[in-house]
């Protein structure tokens, strides 16, 4: 399944989000989070509306959007696969899980599968070292993974 809003961004929705936060100090970050939730990522048309609405320059908005690693200015897959690359996961065999994911999805880190389903990312720690090696897909965390089980997990999302 491809991303819901690909091509047509619902700018009315963006305007509505901006209107709700307008005038509040520090409105930009909550607006960007909500816009990303609504649209899937932060396309330029949406950031232009955010800039106009909040009285900021597009460069300022873009600066903030590119500073935070969980804000995306490029289209993303429906599910983000976040692989932990820290030491505890590593010693528990994360590299094999990573290799399997890369092979299975056919993309490298930072890329999105052609069907628009998965985006692959590295993270420093998921905070679940007790069940290392761990991977997060969307909002769910999976632990004690092996090359075999990670393929099975992926299947749940396909």
């Amino acid at each position, binding site marked *: 399944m491809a991303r819901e809003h690909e091509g047509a961004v619902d700018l009315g929705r963006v305007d509505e989000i901006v209107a709700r936060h307008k005038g509040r100090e520090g409105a930009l970050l909550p607006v960007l989070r909500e816009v990303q939730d609504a649209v899937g990522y932060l396309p*330029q048309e949406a950031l232009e509306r955010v800039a106009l609405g909040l009285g900021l*320059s*597009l460069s300022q908005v873009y*600066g903030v959007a*590119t500073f935070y690693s969980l804000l995306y200015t490029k289209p993303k897959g429906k599910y983000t696969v976040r692989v932990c690359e820290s030491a505890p996961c590593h010693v528990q065999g994360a590299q094999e899980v990573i290799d399997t994911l890369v092979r299975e999805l056919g993309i490298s880190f930072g890329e999105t599968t052609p069907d628009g389903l998965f985006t692959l990312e590295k993270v420093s720690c998921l905070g679940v070292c007790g069940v290392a090696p761990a991977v997060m897909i969307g909002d769910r965390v999976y632990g004690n993974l092996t090359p075999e089980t990670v393929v099975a997990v992926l299947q749940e999302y396909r």
Partner: protein
Amino acid sequence: MPEVKVTIDGIEVTVPSGSTILQAAERAGVRIPTLCHHPDQEVKGVCRVCVVEVEKSRTLQAACAFPVADGMVVRTNTPAVREARRVIVELMLSRHPENCLECARNMKCELQALAEELGVRQVRFERKLKDHPKDTSTPALIRDPSKCVVCRRCVYTCEKVQGVAALWPAYRGHETVVVPAYDSDMIDVVCALCGQCIHACPTGAITEKDDTEQVWEALGDPSKHVVVQTAPAIRATLGEEAGLPPGTLVTGKMVAALRRLGFDRVFDTDFTADLTIMEEGSELIHRLETGGPLPLLTSCSPGWVKFIEHFFPELLPNVSTCKSPQQMFGALAKTYYAEKFGLDPADIFVVSVMPCTAKKFEAARPEMNSSGYRDVDVVLTSRELGRMFRQAGIDFEKLEEEEFDDPLGVSTGAGAIFGATGGVMEAALRTAYELVTKKELKELDFVAVRGMAGIKEATVDLDGVKLNVAVAHGLANARTLMEKVARGEGDYHFIEIMACPGGCIGGGGQPIRTTNEVRERRIEAIYREDKRLPIRKSHENPAIKKLYEEYLGEPLGEKSHELLHTHYTPRKRV
């Protein structure tokens, strides 16, 4: 304000509480090197070059940002401090190109000066340059992020001083780069091309587009009749390019030096500044009589014009239709002057010397060809002219003073003060008063509109007619004023806006270094020029009178409309 005692390198000083270590050190006569610090900006504390030892503090502290406390003991010259500063600068250099000799800021680069000051003789880190392409998209500015040290001084200026924020840090950490949104070309964003970022930049990451080669070529071409015009502000700043102190007036030497370079005629933009007053003053009177649209907004500053085209397109009917003095000059040089002296306008090559990077953009605007040719062929900044003088081996100080050529070199004090904030307003008032009241103006100095205050307001009595005027300089101030106008407040009749702080003397094309302190000294020079000149009202300029008699007819007449007036283009807001 309570005071505190601090000891810096063994020297005890008393400073107001809340001062930074840097300020206290200045009081103690101790120099601390800085880079992201700028005298006209708020503290950023990002570059860490100014680190010092503070007794009882675990780590080194940034002197520019660290507040003093009573009894504080600071050491600025210890092995740890020297090593830390050197490492910081070496790390910057490890990401900075080594081609200083080929850089426009060679010998005027703060990073270079810092490396020398700290005794850097080798960079102990692996060189890894920022792989970022040069932006040559505009006719005015060249942006080279590979030379950027991410000090954020231009970011401050673009946002706080100019109210534009076209440049902003994007990405994160090691990847941080100061760019327009989406790494766009400058020509595609809301940039006014004012060039104030150049004055903010410690390195060569932003410079003017150098057009000197085109001028050398024209000067070397015997088929070309090459004329030059010099903006009002240039005579008050050009001396700095020859090493003279800010505030030195060099009118006569500048004319002499331009003749040495080989220009066929040395003319003066002050002449068309006077002409602007005739046209714009008449436009003001016409709008007052016919009811609008008011307030009339000045149109001399091309950075301001581009700014209002982007951000307040609904106010474009308020902008004077007068071309800027530069463009009026170009149009007349290839028509009136050509006809009068039997020259083929196709052979006339018009060079402007301007305080301004946005003037390069203005001259390239597609509508600026009312002579049938491109009205102004090349615009040089005062920095570029200084460069040409040095290349030509002209010893500025030894030159005898010379006079401008007739007739486009005849001007008044009113034309001269165009170079300082409030000058266009003052010049217009001198003429408007006499045109409206038919009486002689006794007190020529309208001091209420002079000086560095960001927004200046005054009510002028034209013999019963009360004229509410305002002056703003620096685009952030312009924005504040325009928001007021857009809300329908203020009841203004006439507003002068200059894009750059201090007006043209502080323009983006002016000598490095331009700070507010330097601006004030240049402004003093501008008013000395005004006082020096025998005629101080535009409408009394004999060459202007003759121009109307021989050629234009009357202000706002058909010929004026065709050659001296223009229109504007709404642009995108984001």
